[in-house]
């Protein structure tokens, strides 16, 4: 299946997109998505455990995701 991932700031620059369609295995956990992303051009900027949010909430790597979820891979935050 394909997960549409939101990217921001330095990650959006690295991948050259703010929204990316990523082919992933079924079922898919957050860690599986990150592995797939790291294999794409620009993926070298991602740490092995980047911050990930699903449906606007922070989640750990073992959470399952589906095509219905809003998934965001998030660079180190720097508000303030």
């Amino acid at each position, binding site marked *: 299946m394909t997960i549409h991932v939101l990217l921001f*700031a*330095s990650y959006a620059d690295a991948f050259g997109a703010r929204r990316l369609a990523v082919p992933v295995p079924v079922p898919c956990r957050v860690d599986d998505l990150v592995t797939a992303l790291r294999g794409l051009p620009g993926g070298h900027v991602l740490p092995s455990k980047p911050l990930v*949010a699903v449906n*606007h*909430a922070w989640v750990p790597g073992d959470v399952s995701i589906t095509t219905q979820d809003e998934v965001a891979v*998030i*660079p*180190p935050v720097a*508000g303030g």
Partner: protein
Amino acid sequence: MRWRSFRRWPVAEAAASAPSAAQSGGWIAIVEQPIDVTSLIARVSDGSVGAISTFLGTVRHVNDGRDVTGIEYHAYQPMAERELALIADETCTASPGLRLAIEHRVGTLGIGEVSVAIAASHPRRAPALAATTYVIEALKRRVPIWKCEHYVDGSRAWVDPTTSVAPSTPL
């Protein structure tokens, strides 16, 4: 300006556990226009408060030894609003009687402009002072907002607090 009320959810649960953030009240917003600090303070002010503490984050002209001309702030807006509401709610829940108003600005800001403003009010000063510190520290750790610094030489760079060489001690 987009203001949004934050409330404990579900509301019935909040009503049953008095006092709560829902009853204390509060406001959060991610805004594109300059922050009106006076209006923000008015959000938490009435005759019942004995102390109002404010925190303003501003754009400085030097960071990590480089001359900065301005900062572009970006947010993952729906999540930033949700996370700000969670922070505000947990702060108010931990400190009954506290009222909070928080705004974070996005877009391109010049030197000296206010990027974030927090106003906290309480009948007593200690909870108001503690709340502004708690909120800004939590915001910096948890709210998905990023800043891209623009430098005098025309270059730009995303700020990564995990690799910054700036001193970590606050004083």
